[in-house]
């Protein structure tokens, strides 16, 4: 029989881990939903919190692990160095939030719930201001092998990432490296900046409109 490749071994590992990944996701999503319920129930008509959860697919997990190596290449001389348990996002929950003024409140609620989890926020590599998204990872009771990850993301940014993923990277995972190319990073930065400004303007207008309407009622 031909020697198994690193990819073959990792695929086997993935399916062995899959029940744990699903359990972690179920626990993570349930705890997150429960913790933010008081916030969700108090939202105004125009405000939204959308929770998305996903199990990372097998080939996507392998690709992620490969891309963590410099030169995006596994070292075939050291196959045992690689394990999917090093990935932090095999089970992931993303909370899309509008308006952004709720980000802090949600962050606080979830930090209390997942108090031992480690922060690893997503930042624009060339900007020093607020992170693009808040990201945490850690273990929960469902498994001591698989880490879960949750992200709290402004709505438009999160939806842009979803569209980008669905339209480009999901059908052709090999294109993932395109996103790291400097010119593409520059374009992505411009999109995210524009979406942030759009969201900010929208939120400001709504806030002013609501404030004016409330003033009218109290007079």
């Amino acid at each position, binding site marked *: 029989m031909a020697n198994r490749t690193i990819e073959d071994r990792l695929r086997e590992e993935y399916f062995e881990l899959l029940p744990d990944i699903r359990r972690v996701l179920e626990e993570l999503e349930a705890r997150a939903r429960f913790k933010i319920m008081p916030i969700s129930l108090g939202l105004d008509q125009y405000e939204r919190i959308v929770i998305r959860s996903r199990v990372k697919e097998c080939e996507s997990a392998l690709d992620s692990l490969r891309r963590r190596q410099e030169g995006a290449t596994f070292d075939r001389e050291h196959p045992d160095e690689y394990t999917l348990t090093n990935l932090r996002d095999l089970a992931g929950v993303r909370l899309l939030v509008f308006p952004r003024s709720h980000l802090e409140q949600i962050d606080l609620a979830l930090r209390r719930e997942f108090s031992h989890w480690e922060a690893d926020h997503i930042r624009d590599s060339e900007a020093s201001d607020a992170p693009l998204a808040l990201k945490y990872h850690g273990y929960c009771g469902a498994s001591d092998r698989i880490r879960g990850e949750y992200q709290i993301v402004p709505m438009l940014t999160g939806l842009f990432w979803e569209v980008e993923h669905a339209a480009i990277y999901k059908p052709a995972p090999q294109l993932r*490296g395109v996103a790291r190319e400097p010119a593409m990073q520059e374009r992505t930065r411009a999109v995210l900046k524009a979406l942030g400004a759009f969201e900010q303007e929208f939120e400001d207008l709504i806030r002013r409109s609501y404030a004016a309407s409330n003033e009218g009622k109290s007079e």
Partner: protein
Amino acid sequence: MTNLLAKRQILQNAGYVYNFDREVYVNRKAKKVFSLEFVEDNSEDDLRTRIDEDPGGQAWRFYFNAEPSKAVQEELEEILG
């Protein structure tokens, strides 16, 4: 223009092409490979120096932050060559 874009321009002007599957810049004629990490972590002057370096033979040169193993070099040579 950001620092990274300037470095990209230097590489492009020297005939390097980005390989998005391996996340490296490659020049087949010069037989040189720059990892994206190396490009990010080194200055524009460093890049120019490495680009101008005499390859000194037929073997590929890998400019990585951590020296790639022989197996990794062979695989990349096969894919990129």
